[in-house]
């Protein structure tokens, strides 16, 4: 049964639960709502909740757990020799899944009937050709163990769906009946419903934790796979990035890290002075009229999607820098360059630095400024020697957050910085020129994970290791920055 139908049926049962619970409670009070402990609608909601919530939770849990159980059991039938032959279990399983889908398609198109799909033998018929005819993506010849596993897989997936439908609907009915039995004029429906709502609220707020957990686990898992195939030493300390899908790749992270840090540095060199000076001017000097115009204009920069900046780098800034600076001066002739990406990213970060700094500068107490003016300091002396030192921790926090943004930024570097990894082996001279194209961690995550990917090869899996590294770096920066900013705010509260 399709998921949508299950959900609709459960909701329908919920509605019945609402009506039944409400009417039974009213009935027990002789139709007089004032005799009830809670408002009649609470009895209804009680019925609805007990019917729907456990059922849907069970469905979600089933959907989460079932795929891995089915996969494990389907894989159990595959001989070890087969796994050894293809390299890894996940690779074989990908093939099994694809074959299973192809069988589904064949049945849907009517080129096979259900019986045939179940009992087909690769030894006797040319399965591969027949499945390819359906338009499914079959890359290798389908042989007997794979086909068998695929057939098992299909059967189990179908069975799982059936069991799930039964279990979910059954649970909904049980909940309905239970709620109905409980509905009585002395039953404290409101308290129960409110407890239930509170539980839902708690569940919603734990999604943040589950997301983080999901990020960490999914990347850890694949990263572990990667390090089984590739030495972690060479990944973290390798000076060369040269992936090759035929094997023998060199997957050193350092050139990418260098590119990331270099471009981020350029971006911060642009964004921090401009953002900081803009914030100082807006908070200390600007007339209310100028502030009302300039502040939103600069903040618009923050609302523009990064793809727009990427396009701006690609079609405007890149050619401009190449034609006016890099080529005449002989620095290089690539439209993609560190400076292009850095400059455009810097523009993107200006509002980020300026609005955070603005808040922080405004948090410096006026008494501090008065003390300085009272001594005959000019406004700029006050800012430079009193306000900024007082705001320094907060500003450092803002810059760290901006740095974390820069390191994690993807589209601008994809479109502005190019795809060539820094040639670290050729020494500092080769990697310091800001007019050359250079690639970053994020660009490589994108390029290794888009297009035809094979989740068993180190060339694809390296993206997860890169992602985890990126996550850890930005996490560190964020936590540090948030800590600093929070401490700073407490100081002046």
């Amino acid at each position, binding site marked *: 049964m399709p998921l949508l139908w299950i959900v609709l049926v459960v909701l329908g049962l919920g509605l019945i639960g609402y009506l039944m619970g409400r009417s039974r409670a009213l009935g027990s009070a002789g139709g007089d709502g004032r005799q009830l402990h809670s408002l009649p609608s609470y009895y209804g909601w009680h019925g609805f909740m007990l019917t729907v919530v456990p059922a849907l939770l069970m469905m979600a849990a089933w959907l989460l757990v079932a795929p891995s159980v089915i996969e494990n059991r389907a894989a159990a039938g595959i001989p070890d020799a087969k796994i050894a032959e293809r390299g890894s279990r996940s690779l074989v399983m990908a093939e099994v*899944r694809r074959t299973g889908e192809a069988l589904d398609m064949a049945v849907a198109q009517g080129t096979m009937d259900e019986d045939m799909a179940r009992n087909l033998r690769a030894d006797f018929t040319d399965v591969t050709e027949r499945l390819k005819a359906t338009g499914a993506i079959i890359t290798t010849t389908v042989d007997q163990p794979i086909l068998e596993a695929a057939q098992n897989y299909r059967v189990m997936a179908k069975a799982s769906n059936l069991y799930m439908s039964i279990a979910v609907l059954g649970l909904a009915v049980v909940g309905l009946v239970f709620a109905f039995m409980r509905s009585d004029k002395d039953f404290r429906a409101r308290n129960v419903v409110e407890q239930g709502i509170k539980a839902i609220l708690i569940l919603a707020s734990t999604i943040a934790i589950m997301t983080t957990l999901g990020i960490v686990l999914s990347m850890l898992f694949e990263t572990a796979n990667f390090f089984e195939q590739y030495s972690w030493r060479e990944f973290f300390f390798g000076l060369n990035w040269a992936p090759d899908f035929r094997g023998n790749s060199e997957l050193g992270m350092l050139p990418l890290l260098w590119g990331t840090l270099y471009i981020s540095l350029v971006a911060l060199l642009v964004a921090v002075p401009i953002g900081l000076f803009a914030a100082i001017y807006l908070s200390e*000097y600007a007339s209310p009229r100028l502030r009302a115009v300039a502040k939103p204009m600069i903040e618009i920069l923050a609302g523009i999607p*990064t*793809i727009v900046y990427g396009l701006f780098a690609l079609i405007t800034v890149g050619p401009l820098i190449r034609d006016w600076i890099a080529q005449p001066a002989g620095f290089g002739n690539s439209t993609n360059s560190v400076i292009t990406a850095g400059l455009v990213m810097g523009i993107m970060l200006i509002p980020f630095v300026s609005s955070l700094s603005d808040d922080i500068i405004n948090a410096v107490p006026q008494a501090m400024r008065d003390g300085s003016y009272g001594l005959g300091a000019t*406004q700029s002396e006050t800012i430079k020697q009193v306000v900024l030192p007082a705001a320094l921790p907060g500003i450092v926090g803002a810059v760290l957050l901006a740095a974390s943004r820069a390191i994690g930024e993807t589209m601008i570097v994809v479109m502005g910085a190019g795809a060539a990894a820094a040639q670290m082996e050729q020494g500092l001279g080769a990697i310091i020129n800001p007019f050359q194209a250079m690639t970053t961690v994020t660009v490589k995550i994108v390029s290794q994970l888009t297009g035809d990917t094979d989740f068993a090869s180190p060339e694809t899996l390296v993206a997860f290791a890169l992602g985890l590294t990126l996550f850890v770096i930005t996490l560190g920066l964020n936590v540090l920055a948030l800590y600093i900013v929070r401490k700073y705010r407490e100081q002046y509260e």
Partner: protein
Amino acid sequence: MTDATAQGPDASRPERSGSLIALDERTRRRNRSERRFRLYGLIAIGIGVLALVVLLTSILSQGLPAFQQTFVNASVYLDPAKLDKNGTRDIEEIKKVSTFGYAPLIADAMDRKMESLGIDPEEFGLSDKDALEMISKEAAAQLRRYVIANPDQIGQTVEFRFLANGRIDGYYKGRVTMESAERDSNVSPAQLRLADELKADGALGTYFNWDFITAADASENRPEAAGIGVAIIGSFYMMLVVLFLALPIGVAASIYLEEFAPKNWFTDLIEVNISNLAAVPSIVFGILGLAIFINYVGLPQSAPIVGGLVLTLMTLPTIIISTRASLKSVPPSIRDAALGVGASKMQSVFHHVLPLAMPGILTGTIIGLAQALGETAPLMLIGMVAFVREYPGAPPEGFFDPASALPVQVYNWTTRADPAFVERASGAIIVLLLFLLCMNMIAIILRRRFERRW
């Protein structure tokens, strides 16, 4: 306290310039440095504003031409002998005629057009085939769609606007010149001269191009036909998913954290997670989507549902943060008043606090949606860069069909060789920015209209 008078009072007072009205040298110098400092601030703001202006003008000037397209006007005889051999007007029969069947009709129409205008392609040194190449390769498909939509027109002669080839179009947009045409294998200067002649006779013209907004993407060698229809639908579906997931979950989480959560390590853990997730690079969410939703759960690639789920997780922190701020701004007296008349805590929140905080919550949600709409990187990882020709179906099944998304479509076009796609990409950006502008306007209006000062 004796040290206060340790020094003679007058001995300590140095001679100053005395008058306040005459500025001393040092003060003048300090004032100059003050003005310099102020100037730096102004320059910084100037750079920021200038960057915005340059960015927008660059995109606008590159992208506005995408809304205009060069067309060739010709009257086509929809020959029943070719389109409907049996004469049954059965739609299924008509559909069986492929685009190849329509090409001769177009060639025929062009021939007659030239003849009626008294233009002979030979004079320009062009064969009939060369002249026909000035029409887009998409023209046959264009005509076929028209016939399938209007089968009753078969046998008639209809006035039709054919898309001109991308290079001819580029010629009128300044992208292609006579010089560049010399070196271009796809277009010759003679064709451009013929196009000028046709334009002078009114057979070729530039019109507003609705197809850019409604049509699907087109292949590498026919940029003139590429549109953002599929991408808009894909983005819209994702926004629906985000709205229906992120808003209730975000509001529920905020209510718990703001109104019910006890102060303990678990609450702290949630808070730290939320503020951190708000700053995690978007591409990491893409990896999450790929690993969990596609590889583990087995949802299809390129589907709006996956994109919507990923964007939901990304938008949640934004929505939670702004929702909490607006819940916080509802004064405690409202809660006390509700509790005072015997409402439960839950009732006071749902009946009083939440409605009062609603405008703020909606504003935050719209801003979160706007952020999600412009997000590109995570969508690339879940396969939305794929070339999608077909419109996704109606929801809910449509959520599982392959689709593109506006920002990803833009990226996709920038990776193609033909410079005409850059124009398309910029045009798509303009549409994207217009959407964002509308969303932000709505947010601002909501805030203005419903903002309460307590």
